Protein backbone atom coordinates (compact mmCIF):
# COMPACT_ATOMS: atom_id res chain seq x y z
CA UNK A 1 0.00 0.00 0.00
CA UNK A 2 1.23 3.47 -0.77
CA UNK A 3 0.05 6.68 0.81
CA UNK A 4 -0.35 10.05 -0.90
CA UNK A 5 1.72 11.68 1.86
CA UNK A 6 4.79 9.60 1.01
CA UNK A 7 7.54 11.63 -0.72
CA UNK A 8 7.98 8.88 -3.34
CA UNK A 9 5.17 6.58 -4.55
CA UNK A 10 5.31 3.77 -7.07
CA UNK A 11 2.00 3.52 -8.90
CA UNK A 12 1.43 0.07 -10.36
CA UNK A 13 -0.55 -0.10 -13.60
CA UNK A 14 -0.25 -3.84 -14.31
CA UNK A 15 0.60 -6.97 -12.35
CA UNK A 16 4.28 -7.06 -11.45
CA UNK A 17 6.28 -10.19 -12.29
CA UNK A 18 7.65 -11.92 -9.22
CA UNK A 19 11.20 -13.26 -8.90
CA UNK A 20 12.33 -11.03 -11.77
CA UNK A 21 15.71 -9.51 -12.59
CA UNK A 22 15.45 -5.74 -12.12
CA UNK A 23 17.49 -3.50 -14.42
CA UNK A 24 18.10 0.17 -13.68
CA UNK A 25 18.34 2.71 -16.48
CA UNK A 26 19.02 5.96 -14.67
CA UNK A 27 20.73 9.12 -15.91
CA UNK A 28 24.41 9.07 -14.98
CA UNK A 29 27.79 9.53 -16.68
CA UNK A 30 27.65 9.05 -20.46
CA UNK A 31 23.98 8.04 -20.03
CA UNK A 32 25.39 4.51 -20.25
CA UNK A 33 22.79 2.79 -18.06
CA UNK A 34 19.95 4.70 -19.63
CA UNK A 35 21.00 3.81 -23.19
CA UNK A 36 21.71 0.17 -22.26
CA UNK A 37 18.43 -0.34 -20.41
CA UNK A 38 16.38 1.47 -23.05
CA UNK A 39 17.91 -0.88 -25.64
CA UNK A 40 17.08 -3.93 -23.52
CA UNK A 41 13.49 -2.75 -22.97
CA UNK A 42 13.10 -2.58 -26.76
CA UNK A 43 14.88 -5.88 -27.43
CA UNK A 44 12.91 -7.77 -24.76
CA UNK A 45 9.67 -5.99 -25.77
CA UNK A 46 8.85 -4.85 -22.23
CA UNK A 47 5.78 -2.69 -21.61
CA UNK A 48 5.07 -0.10 -18.92
CA UNK A 49 3.92 -1.71 -15.66
CA UNK A 50 4.38 1.10 -13.12
CA UNK A 51 5.63 4.64 -12.68
CA UNK A 52 7.26 6.73 -9.99
CA UNK A 53 5.34 9.70 -8.64
CA UNK A 54 7.09 12.17 -6.37
CA UNK A 55 6.88 15.81 -5.39
CA UNK A 56 10.70 15.74 -5.46
CA UNK A 57 10.68 15.34 -9.24
CA UNK A 58 10.28 18.36 -11.55
CA UNK A 59 6.78 19.06 -12.93
CA UNK A 60 7.40 17.19 -16.18
CA UNK A 61 5.41 14.77 -18.32
CA UNK A 62 6.72 13.09 -21.46
CA UNK A 63 4.38 12.95 -24.43
CA UNK A 64 4.44 9.85 -26.59
CA UNK A 65 2.02 9.87 -29.55
CA UNK A 66 0.14 12.68 -27.83
CA UNK A 67 -0.34 10.90 -24.50
CA UNK A 68 1.29 11.95 -21.21
CA UNK A 69 3.64 9.66 -19.28
CA UNK A 70 5.67 10.04 -16.10
CA UNK A 71 9.36 10.52 -16.91
CA UNK A 72 10.45 7.82 -14.43
CA UNK A 73 8.72 4.57 -15.33
CA UNK A 74 9.06 0.86 -14.70
CA UNK A 75 8.78 -1.56 -17.58
CA UNK A 76 8.47 -5.32 -17.42
CA UNK A 77 7.82 -8.58 -19.14
CA UNK A 78 8.45 -12.20 -18.22
CA UNK A 79 11.52 -12.41 -16.06
CA UNK A 80 12.53 -8.75 -16.20
CA UNK A 81 11.53 -5.41 -14.79
CA UNK A 82 13.41 -2.25 -15.72
CA UNK A 83 13.40 1.32 -14.43
CA UNK A 84 13.94 4.04 -17.02
CA UNK A 85 14.08 7.79 -16.53
CA UNK A 86 13.50 10.06 -19.52
CA UNK A 87 14.40 13.16 -17.49
CA UNK A 88 17.38 13.99 -15.29
CA UNK A 89 16.70 13.17 -11.63
CA UNK A 90 17.39 16.14 -9.34
CA UNK A 91 20.33 15.45 -7.03
CA UNK A 92 18.16 16.06 -3.96
CA UNK A 93 15.64 13.43 -5.09
CA UNK A 94 18.16 10.67 -5.84
CA UNK A 95 18.39 9.31 -2.28
CA UNK A 96 14.65 8.90 -1.52
CA UNK A 97 13.89 7.58 -5.00
CA UNK A 98 16.67 4.98 -4.97
CA UNK A 99 15.62 3.87 -1.49
CA UNK A 100 12.03 3.48 -2.68
CA UNK A 101 13.05 1.53 -5.81
CA UNK A 102 15.07 -0.91 -3.70
CA UNK A 103 12.24 -1.29 -1.14
CA UNK A 104 9.74 -1.86 -3.94
CA UNK A 105 11.98 -4.38 -5.69
CA UNK A 106 12.44 -6.29 -2.47
CA UNK A 107 8.67 -6.32 -1.86
CA UNK A 108 8.24 -7.77 -5.37
CA UNK A 109 10.78 -10.53 -4.62
CA UNK A 110 13.28 -9.32 -7.20
CA UNK A 111 15.95 -12.01 -7.49
CA UNK A 112 18.73 -9.72 -8.73
CA UNK A 113 19.16 -5.98 -9.29
CA UNK A 114 21.45 -5.03 -12.16
CA UNK A 115 22.84 -1.54 -12.62
CA UNK A 116 24.63 -1.04 -15.92
CA UNK A 117 26.50 2.24 -15.91
CA UNK A 118 29.55 4.18 -16.91
CA UNK A 119 32.89 4.78 -15.30
CA UNK A 120 34.37 8.03 -16.58
CA UNK A 121 37.90 7.82 -17.95
CA UNK A 122 40.12 10.50 -19.40
CA UNK A 123 40.98 9.98 -23.08
CA UNK A 124 37.94 7.75 -23.62
CA UNK A 125 38.20 8.60 -27.33
CA UNK A 126 41.45 6.56 -27.46
CA UNK A 127 39.70 3.40 -26.20
CA UNK A 128 38.26 1.15 -28.93
CA UNK A 129 36.69 -1.47 -26.63
CA UNK A 130 35.66 -0.07 -23.24
CA UNK A 131 36.53 -2.35 -20.33
CA UNK A 132 33.74 -3.24 -17.91
CA UNK A 133 34.25 -3.54 -14.17
CA UNK A 134 31.91 -5.28 -11.75
CA UNK A 135 30.78 -4.64 -8.19
CA UNK A 136 28.32 -6.64 -6.10
CA UNK A 137 26.29 -6.33 -2.92
CA UNK A 138 27.71 -9.51 -1.36
CA UNK A 139 30.75 -11.77 -1.43
CA UNK A 140 29.01 -14.68 -3.19
CA UNK A 141 27.89 -12.48 -6.09
CA UNK A 142 31.33 -10.94 -6.30
CA UNK A 143 32.76 -14.46 -6.71
CA UNK A 144 30.15 -15.25 -9.38
CA UNK A 145 31.18 -12.14 -11.32
CA UNK A 146 34.82 -13.03 -10.96
CA UNK A 147 34.18 -16.65 -12.06
CA UNK A 148 32.42 -15.32 -15.17
CA UNK A 149 35.51 -13.31 -16.04
CA UNK A 150 34.32 -9.86 -14.95
CA UNK A 151 37.09 -7.66 -13.62
CA UNK A 152 36.18 -6.54 -10.10
CA UNK A 153 36.17 -2.91 -9.06
CA UNK A 154 38.26 -3.42 -5.93
CA UNK A 155 38.55 0.08 -4.52
CA UNK A 156 37.50 3.67 -5.00
CA UNK A 157 34.29 5.64 -4.79
CA UNK A 158 30.93 5.19 -6.47
CA UNK A 159 28.72 8.29 -6.50
CA UNK A 160 25.14 8.73 -7.69
CA UNK A 161 22.05 6.58 -8.19
CA UNK A 162 23.90 3.29 -8.75
CA UNK A 163 26.02 3.85 -5.66
CA UNK A 164 22.88 4.21 -3.57
CA UNK A 165 21.18 1.19 -5.14
CA UNK A 166 24.25 -0.86 -4.25
CA UNK A 167 24.29 0.48 -0.69
CA UNK A 168 20.59 -0.01 0.01
CA UNK A 169 20.68 -3.49 -1.56
CA UNK A 170 23.64 -4.47 0.64
CA UNK A 171 21.79 -3.13 3.71
CA UNK A 172 18.58 -5.02 2.89
CA UNK A 173 20.36 -8.15 1.62
CA UNK A 174 18.90 -7.78 -1.87
CA UNK A 175 21.30 -9.37 -4.40
CA UNK A 176 22.68 -6.65 -6.68
CA UNK A 177 25.45 -6.21 -9.19
CA UNK A 178 26.80 -3.19 -11.05
CA UNK A 179 28.51 -3.44 -14.43
CA UNK A 180 30.39 -0.23 -15.13
CA UNK A 181 31.91 0.37 -18.56
CA UNK A 182 34.69 2.87 -19.23
CA UNK A 183 32.89 5.89 -20.64
CA UNK A 184 32.82 9.58 -21.36
CA UNK A 185 31.78 11.70 -18.39
CA UNK A 186 29.52 14.20 -20.12
CA UNK A 187 29.05 12.84 -23.65
CA UNK A 188 26.45 10.13 -24.40
CA UNK A 189 28.29 6.85 -24.88
CA UNK A 190 26.36 4.12 -26.76
CA UNK A 191 29.57 2.09 -27.26
CA UNK A 192 30.02 1.89 -23.50
CA UNK A 193 26.35 0.86 -23.20
CA UNK A 194 26.99 -1.94 -25.72
CA UNK A 195 30.03 -3.06 -23.71
CA UNK A 196 27.99 -3.16 -20.49
CA UNK A 197 25.24 -5.23 -22.17
CA UNK A 198 27.83 -7.67 -23.55
CA UNK A 199 29.14 -8.15 -20.01
CA UNK A 200 25.57 -8.60 -18.75
CA UNK A 201 25.11 -11.33 -21.39
CA UNK A 202 28.32 -12.97 -20.22
CA UNK A 203 27.11 -13.02 -16.60
CA UNK A 204 23.50 -14.10 -17.20
CA UNK A 205 23.83 -16.15 -20.40
CA UNK A 206 21.07 -14.06 -22.01
CA UNK A 207 22.25 -12.98 -25.43
CA UNK A 208 21.25 -9.43 -26.41
CA UNK A 209 22.07 -8.12 -29.88
CA UNK A 210 23.90 -4.78 -29.53
CA UNK A 211 24.55 -4.12 -33.23
CA UNK A 212 21.88 -1.37 -33.35
CA UNK A 213 23.60 0.46 -30.50
CA UNK A 214 26.95 0.34 -32.26
CA UNK A 215 25.70 1.14 -35.77
CA UNK A 216 23.20 3.76 -34.61
CA UNK A 217 25.59 5.29 -32.08
CA UNK A 218 25.90 8.68 -33.81
CA UNK A 219 22.12 9.02 -33.99
CA UNK A 220 21.77 8.22 -30.27
CA UNK A 221 24.48 10.75 -29.39
CA UNK A 222 22.65 13.41 -31.36
CA UNK A 223 19.33 12.68 -29.69
CA UNK A 224 20.76 12.41 -26.18
CA UNK A 225 22.50 15.82 -26.06
CA UNK A 226 19.86 17.70 -24.08
CA UNK A 227 19.36 14.85 -21.61
CA UNK A 228 23.14 14.64 -21.13
CA UNK A 229 23.38 18.39 -20.54
CA UNK A 230 20.74 18.32 -17.80
CA UNK A 231 22.15 15.14 -16.28
CA UNK A 232 25.60 16.72 -16.08
CA UNK A 233 24.18 19.62 -14.05
CA UNK A 234 22.75 17.14 -11.53
CA UNK A 235 25.95 15.05 -11.49
CA UNK A 236 27.88 18.19 -10.57
CA UNK A 237 25.48 18.80 -7.68
CA UNK A 238 26.03 15.17 -6.52
CA UNK A 239 29.81 15.78 -6.54
CA UNK A 240 30.17 12.93 -9.04
CA UNK A 241 33.81 13.83 -9.67
CA UNK A 242 34.54 12.31 -6.26
CA UNK A 243 34.83 9.06 -8.23
CA UNK A 244 38.24 10.33 -9.36
CA UNK A 245 39.38 10.72 -5.71
CA UNK A 246 41.71 8.31 -3.96
CA UNK A 247 40.05 6.84 -0.88
CA UNK A 248 41.79 7.07 2.47
CA UNK A 249 42.24 3.63 4.00
CA UNK A 250 44.28 3.38 7.19
Amino acid at each position, binding site marked *: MTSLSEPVRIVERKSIPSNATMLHGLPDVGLVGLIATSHMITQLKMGEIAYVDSELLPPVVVLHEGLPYAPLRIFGDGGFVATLSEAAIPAKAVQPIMRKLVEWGQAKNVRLMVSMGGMPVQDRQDIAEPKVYGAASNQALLKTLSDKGVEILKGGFMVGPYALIMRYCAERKVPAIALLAQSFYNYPDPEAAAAAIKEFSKVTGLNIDVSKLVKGGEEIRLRA*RDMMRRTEQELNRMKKTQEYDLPLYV
Partner: protein
Amino acid sequence: MAESKRKRLSLFDLISDYMEDFLSEEMGRTFAERPSWDTKSCCIEPLCSVFVAADEVVVTADLPNTNPDTIMVEQVGKDTLEIKAEMKRKVSFEEFGITHRKGEFSFFRCQTRIPVAVVAKRMKTQFKRGILEVHLPRKKGIKIKVE
Protein backbone atom coordinates in the same frame (compact mmCIF):
# COMPACT_ATOMS: atom_id res chain seq x y z
CA MET B 1 8.39 5.42 10.17
CA ALA B 2 11.89 6.69 10.87
CA GLU B 3 12.95 6.48 7.22
CA SER B 4 10.22 8.75 5.93
CA LYS B 5 11.00 11.48 8.47
CA ARG B 6 12.79 14.49 7.09
CA LYS B 7 16.50 14.35 7.86
CA ARG B 8 17.56 16.97 10.37
CA LEU B 9 19.96 19.36 8.68
CA SER B 10 22.93 21.06 10.32
CA LEU B 11 23.41 24.81 10.09
CA PHE B 12 26.17 24.24 7.51
CA ASP B 13 23.82 22.08 5.38
CA LEU B 14 21.16 24.81 5.51
CA ILE B 15 23.64 27.53 4.51
CA SER B 16 25.05 25.33 1.74
CA ASP B 17 21.54 24.54 0.41
CA TYR B 18 20.59 28.23 0.57
CA MET B 19 23.72 29.29 -1.32
CA GLU B 20 23.21 26.61 -3.96
CA ASP B 21 19.58 27.66 -4.53
CA PHE B 22 20.52 31.35 -4.51
CA LEU B 23 23.33 30.89 -7.03
CA SER B 24 21.16 28.71 -9.22
CA GLU B 25 18.42 31.37 -9.23
CA GLU B 26 20.90 34.16 -9.91
CA MET B 27 22.46 32.22 -12.78
CA GLY B 28 18.97 31.63 -14.15
CA ARG B 29 18.23 35.35 -14.02
CA THR B 30 21.55 36.32 -15.60
CA PHE B 31 21.68 33.65 -18.30
CA ALA B 32 18.15 32.67 -19.28
CA GLU B 33 18.09 29.07 -20.49
CA ARG B 34 17.82 28.81 -24.22
CA PRO B 35 17.32 25.86 -26.55
CA SER B 36 20.34 23.95 -27.81
CA TRP B 37 19.31 24.60 -31.42
CA ASP B 38 18.66 27.58 -33.67
CA THR B 39 16.33 27.15 -36.65
CA LYS B 40 17.39 30.46 -38.24
CA SER B 41 21.03 29.46 -38.63
CA CYS B 42 20.19 25.70 -38.95
CA CYS B 43 22.66 25.05 -36.11
CA ILE B 44 22.68 22.61 -33.22
CA GLU B 45 24.85 23.38 -30.23
CA PRO B 46 27.14 20.42 -29.50
CA LEU B 47 28.09 19.22 -26.05
CA CYS B 48 31.40 20.83 -25.21
CA SER B 49 33.78 20.97 -22.27
CA VAL B 50 36.94 22.79 -21.21
CA PHE B 51 39.70 21.27 -19.11
CA VAL B 52 42.51 23.43 -17.75
CA ALA B 53 45.73 21.47 -17.26
CA ALA B 54 49.07 22.74 -15.95
CA ASP B 55 50.52 23.50 -19.37
CA GLU B 56 47.55 23.51 -21.72
CA VAL B 57 43.80 23.96 -22.06
CA VAL B 58 41.93 21.11 -23.70
CA VAL B 59 38.57 21.84 -25.28
CA THR B 60 36.50 18.88 -26.47
CA ALA B 61 33.23 18.78 -28.38
CA ASP B 62 30.96 15.86 -29.23
CA LEU B 63 30.34 16.07 -32.98
CA PRO B 64 28.44 12.96 -34.10
CA ASN B 65 27.31 12.74 -37.74
CA THR B 66 30.07 15.18 -38.75
CA ASN B 67 32.31 15.24 -41.77
CA PRO B 68 35.76 15.91 -40.20
CA ASP B 69 36.94 17.92 -43.23
CA THR B 70 34.38 20.62 -42.45
CA ILE B 71 35.42 21.27 -38.84
CA MET B 72 36.60 24.83 -38.17
CA VAL B 73 38.09 26.05 -34.92
CA GLU B 74 38.65 29.77 -34.52
CA GLN B 75 39.55 32.18 -31.76
CA VAL B 76 36.89 34.89 -31.63
CA GLY B 77 37.61 37.78 -29.30
CA LYS B 78 40.23 37.62 -26.60
CA ASP B 79 39.14 34.56 -24.67
CA THR B 80 36.54 32.73 -26.77
CA LEU B 81 36.87 29.75 -29.06
CA GLU B 82 34.31 28.99 -31.75
CA ILE B 83 33.78 25.51 -33.15
CA LYS B 84 31.80 24.98 -36.36
CA ALA B 85 31.19 21.79 -38.34
CA GLU B 86 28.91 20.58 -41.08
CA MET B 87 26.83 17.46 -40.57
CA LYS B 88 27.07 14.51 -42.95
CA ARG B 89 23.32 14.73 -43.41
CA LYS B 90 20.62 17.17 -42.36
CA VAL B 91 18.49 16.31 -39.35
CA SER B 92 15.00 17.61 -38.65
CA PHE B 93 12.71 17.92 -35.63
CA GLU B 94 10.49 15.28 -37.17
CA GLU B 95 13.25 12.68 -36.90
CA PHE B 96 13.29 13.30 -33.14
CA GLY B 97 9.53 12.73 -32.95
CA ILE B 98 8.72 16.47 -32.71
CA THR B 99 5.96 17.42 -35.14
CA HIS B 100 4.85 20.77 -33.69
CA ARG B 101 8.10 22.52 -34.65
CA LYS B 102 9.57 22.92 -38.10
CA GLY B 103 13.25 23.11 -38.84
CA GLU B 104 16.25 21.34 -40.30
CA PHE B 105 19.78 21.40 -39.01
CA SER B 106 22.95 21.10 -41.04
CA PHE B 107 25.63 22.49 -38.71
CA PHE B 108 27.11 22.27 -35.26
CA ARG B 109 28.21 25.53 -33.74
CA CYS B 110 29.30 26.53 -30.26
CA GLN B 111 31.37 29.18 -28.54
CA THR B 112 33.21 28.50 -25.36
CA ARG B 113 35.17 30.74 -23.02
CA ILE B 114 38.79 29.89 -22.31
CA PRO B 115 39.35 30.78 -18.64
CA VAL B 116 43.15 31.32 -18.79
CA ALA B 117 45.51 32.97 -21.27
CA VAL B 118 46.57 30.67 -24.14
CA VAL B 119 48.70 30.83 -27.29
CA ALA B 120 45.99 30.27 -29.91
CA LYS B 121 48.57 30.30 -32.75
CA ARG B 122 50.00 27.02 -31.42
CA MET B 123 46.61 25.31 -31.21
CA LYS B 124 46.52 21.62 -32.23
CA THR B 125 43.38 19.63 -33.06
CA GLN B 126 42.42 16.00 -33.54
CA PHE B 127 39.15 14.22 -34.24
CA LYS B 128 38.61 10.69 -32.92
CA ARG B 129 35.41 8.66 -32.44
CA GLY B 130 33.35 11.76 -33.23
CA ILE B 131 35.05 13.82 -30.54
CA LEU B 132 36.97 16.96 -31.46
CA GLU B 133 39.92 17.70 -29.22
CA VAL B 134 41.56 21.13 -29.26
CA HIS B 135 44.84 21.60 -27.40
CA LEU B 136 45.83 25.18 -26.59
CA PRO B 137 49.19 25.75 -24.85
CA ARG B 138 48.91 28.08 -21.87
CA LYS B 139 50.80 31.37 -21.87
CA LYS B 140 53.82 31.18 -19.62
CA GLY B 141 53.81 33.41 -16.53
CA ILE B 142 56.73 35.18 -14.90
CA LYS B 143 59.20 32.92 -13.12
CA ILE B 144 59.96 33.94 -9.56
CA LYS B 145 63.08 32.65 -7.89
CA VAL B 146 62.42 31.33 -4.39
CA GLU B 147 65.21 32.31 -2.03
